[in-house]
């Protein structure tokens, strides 16, 4: 018996990957967002070079040069301690992007594990895990995050020199936010697992004697990669928002390390005299978060062939 293959029409995309790439490229907003995020990432990475080139110091106060207007040396002027606003924004971007991306990846790992376990085993484990997920979603998260951010690490048995170091506030916030940021990924991965589990290749693997772990890790996980990537991208924005709120309230990244959130804490005090100090860091958060959301949305359209409206 012979099977006649239709020739692929000229100009039509050939593989799944190239079709995805094409759909993504058609999404101009997502593409622009990606370009913007890459530029932002590179600029924040280059913050020390910018500092050097302009001859300014991001953390050194200069009380003779407070609230300076924008100039060639201070591109966006200086803040209430005479520090260069533009360079501090770049350093703040490092923090926000580092926290946002790393917490999103940790959260994705937790969410993927919960989603696959729930979707694969079904029944009671599924009901339990999903009720748990719903409960976490419906909790008032921010007050709980504030409690977690305020606990004394020394009482958890951490040595004082570690508990009080500057880096710890960074790690702590990554841990706290990822503990709560996994819910979207868990729900999406569970839905995808339910679909994949019913496919023939999984049945075939079961018939060949593959155990549950092999099926979950070797068959379901690789096929659930695209929803995981989409959900992770979409959660980065939310995580950056949470980080900025906690830093703004004085419970996240601690000064003098600049973060967009804690830059706004000080700006709040001077909104009557220097409102622009409150505009720039917020604008930076807004643009970054909306770019991640546009990017995630565009990827969702590109990766999910069913989502054609």
């Amino acid at each position: 018996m012979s099977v006649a293959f239709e020739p692929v029409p000229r100009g039509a995309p050939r593989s799944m990957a190239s079709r995805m790439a094409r759909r993504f490229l058609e999404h101009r907003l997502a593409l622009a967002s990606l370009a913007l995020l890459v530029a932002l990432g590179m600029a924040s990475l280059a913050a020390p070079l910018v500092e050097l080139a302009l001859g300014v110091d991001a953390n050194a106060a200069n009380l003779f040069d407070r609230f300076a207007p924008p100039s060639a040396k201070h591109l966006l002027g200086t803040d209430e301690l005479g520090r260069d606003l533009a360079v501090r924004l770049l350093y703040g971007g490092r923090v926000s992007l580092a926290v946002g991306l790393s917490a999103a990846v940790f959260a994705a790992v937790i969410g993927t594990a919960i989603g696959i376990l729930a979707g694969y085993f079904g029944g009671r484990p599924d009901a339990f895990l999903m009720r748990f997920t719903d409960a976490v979603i419906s909790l008032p998260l921010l007050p709980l995050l504030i409690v977690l951010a305020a606990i004394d690490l020394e009482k958890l048995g951490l040595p004082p020199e570690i508990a009080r170091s500057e880096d710890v506030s960074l790690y702590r916030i990554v841990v706290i936010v990822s503990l709560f940021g996994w819910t979207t990924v868990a729900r999406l991965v569970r839905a995808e697992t339910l679909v994949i589990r019913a496919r023939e290749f999984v049945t075939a693997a079961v018939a060949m004697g593959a155990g549950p772990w092999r099926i979950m890790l070797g068959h379901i996980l690789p096929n659930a990669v695209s929803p995981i990537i989409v959900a992770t991208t979409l959660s980065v924005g939310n995580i950056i928002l949470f980080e900025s709120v906690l830093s703004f309230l004085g419970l996240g990244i601690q000064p003098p390390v600049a973060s967009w959130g804690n830059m706004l804490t000080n700006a709040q005090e001077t909104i009557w005299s220097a409102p622009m100090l409150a505009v720039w860091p917020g604008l930076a958060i807004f643009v970054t978060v909306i770019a991640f959301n546009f990017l995630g949305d565009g990827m969702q359209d590109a990766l999910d062939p069913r989502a054609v409206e």
Partner: protein
Amino acid sequence: MLRFAAIRLTESLVVLLLVSFAVYGLIGLMPGDPIDIMIQSDPKLTPADAERLKALYGLDRPIVERYGNWLGAALHGEFGNSRVNMRPVLEILWPRMGNSLMLLGISLALSLAIAIPLGAIAAMRANGVFDYGVNLACFAGFSTPPFWLALLAIILFSVTLGWLPAGGMGPAGGDPAWHESLRYMVLPVGTLTMLSVGGFTRFMRASMIQTLRQDYIRTARAKGLSEGRMVRSHALRGAMTPLVTVLGLSFGGLFSGALITEIMFAWQGMGRMIYDAILGNDYNLALVGLLFATAMTLVGNLLADIAYVWLDPRVSFRSLEAGR
């Protein structure tokens, strides 16, 4: 119906119990516990005195036992006193809860009043200019840092234009007239509404698009109903039902938004009370505040779940139980 409600109620109580234990344990890890504060205020206390005080207050007992004692008292309505104000916590809590519910209630009603028509119209003109504009506005809404939105509102309406008060709940001293307190509500309510309306609108749009593809909508069109009549009497109801579930899950997020709004505008609500209590080492007040906030969101979630089944004739309570 009763059985379903009973199961969901039990689940909510279990969640509340777990949260109370977790928060009780976490509060014990906060800097400056009661003994630390006593030592600070009286440097003559020796470490032996501190141990005796710990034993006196039962702080040397294992955490599970302390939690058990606390829970027993709490179940009898004994929530203890606030350390800072020296008053029963419930006496402080009730008025704060009322203020928060007022802020949340008005803002939620406003959000839905905007989101439902906006989402429905966007869905009926899917992929048109209007739809595109609404979509962009929604993205902007949930990508804005809440405290920054509040700052911008203060800069624009209080600092620059001078139209509205920057914070507080009324002019200092005395009971303000209702139209005067209304002016103090505009910025907090407006900020909270702008934060939540985007998510609801996008959900309503997606739900409406799904509904418009259903057979019963085609039937309604086929029997000659006008488009407006069809939407009003068939499509809207079908599309709004799933919105109820999202509403139930969104109370926690709304409360988080309200916390920021209350802090930014000096609104005397529960979120601000919890925040101040944590920063001021008033841990009993923080604990009780957090539990009531959690209970509030769980009750909202429960009501939404029950309303969902009540609104959607295709879902029966029996099938929901079976599917679990």
